[in-house]
């Protein structure tokens, strides 16, 4: 069921709110978190290999395709047909994990590899989000 909130007003006129002329647009998280809306997509991390830099299982990733990749950026790549989140070492062509129990991966000639975007933010839900939980 889709509930639509509509503000009710009783039609009582009195003093105008003294704050009316100071009103601004409310803070928007989109504005803070997304720099290039048409070049950005949102994904969800799955796994523990990026824990040391603070990306945990089920965290939300904001991936920007507009910015250029720099050495040691956190990126999302297409690595042999699946999306992976890794640190990239552009000099040595390595995909690095941020977890001691995972090895780095050398990108070889025969690998199907492309950078899909730079992870510019990651978001933790410290309590389960009802939207993501699907309630």
């Amino acid at each position: 069921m889709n509930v639509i909130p509509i503000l009710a007003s009783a039609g009582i006129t009195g003093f105008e709110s003294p704050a009316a002329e100071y009103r601004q647009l409310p803070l928007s998280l989109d504005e803070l978190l997304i720099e290039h809306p048409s070049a950005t997509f949102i994904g969800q991390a799955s796994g523990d290999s990026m824990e040391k830099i603070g990306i945990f299982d089920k965290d939300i990733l904001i991936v920007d395709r507009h910015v250029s990749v720099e050495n040691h950026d956190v990126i999302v790549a297409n690595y042999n047909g699946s999306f992976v989140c890794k640190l990239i070492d552009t000099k040595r062509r390595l995909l690095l994990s941020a977890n001691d129990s995972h090895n780095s991966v050398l990108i070889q000639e025969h690998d199907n590899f492309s950078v899909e975007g730079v992870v510019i933010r990651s978001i933790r839900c410290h309590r389960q989000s009802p939207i993501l939980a699907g309630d």
Partner: protein
Amino acid sequence: MYALVDANSFYCSAEQVFRPEWRGRPIVVLSNNDGCIVAANRQAKALGIGKFGPFFEVKDLCQKLGVIALSSNYELYGSLSNSMMEVIGRFAPEQHIYSIDESFLSFKQSYPAIPCLLTHAAHIRRAVWKETRLPVCVGIGETLTLAKVANHAAKKLNGYNGVCYINSAQQRHNILASMQVTDVWGIGSRIGKKLRQMGIHNALALSKLQPGLVRKSFSIEIERTVRELNGEQCKGWDSARADKQQIFSTRSVGERITDKESLLQALSKHAAIAAAKARKQGSAASSLLIFAKNSPYDEQPNGFKYHYRCASPTNDSCELIGHATRIGSQLFNPNTRYYKIGIGLLDLSPVQHLQGDLFTPPKDPALMQVCDNLNQRYGTDSMFVAAQGISGKWHMRRDLLTPQYTTCWQDIPQVSCR
């Protein structure tokens, strides 16, 4: 100078954005209800699976050849189209979005400031790929029709690699000579057939016809096309889309309808869709076409079609639904397994010139206005007429649907950190 930017096999390419394992593989996308193939990418066509065939005829073949078949994911296509258009729009001061996957740009004001249009075209192509992962081709020419021609060359002819800027008479000549006459914008198969009978086979021959003669044998529209092929600007994009004269909402249903209640609900739904479309373009209908039939592949074709003339023109959902359900319930036949159902609004006229009627009270458009505004703001069917039913089995069948990666939180792509 105009550019036409359009995506290569847009629906198929859109499906590959969030499925990297599908990139480079053959894909087809099916119509509503998984009935026909409406889009096939290059790899699928190379295997002999083309557009517009009924899917059930090639289903087994697709499976054998490893062709990925998918239901139409309009939520995904719409959202990716918006991003793509936004990126394209950055490259010119004027943009006209022509369809879900095509956009014209005008460099009228700005092209002396762009040192090389061919390089500019390559930038557009690269930026769209980098930022949206959709492949596009860019054609640039002096008129809208020549931009289309250049786009055709960019896409189909060897040596262009997705970008083409027609900047010499010789080049224009060569490209037109290699194009079928029906590849020209605005030349459909019917006119193409007539042209071929006249011995006009390629676009070059068409461009060499006398404009006056073309107008006599065809229409002023075709004359404009001929002039545009010669670099004379005749078409503007403001006039490129006229109001529709007829509005239809029709669809085949997921599961056959055999009871009256479901049929009336489906008819009501289509009446409401068509009415909303009419209101959007500011038209009202004087007559209404109501039809329902079984599948043409059934043993006995059966169904009904009824043309109803309204007392006065209307675009009110409630009123149109009233007519549709009243007539639908009279014509319902319990022995027909209805498959295709629809409503057509005919004899449309602009709302601002409506002639009132002495015996019909003037309608209050406010209710429909509220309804349209709510549906636009909170999503389709936030508010609807109860006769449409809450959820019907006549809803679309989309068995092979991919997730709505960009519009639904539960569907966002998973990124492996393993």
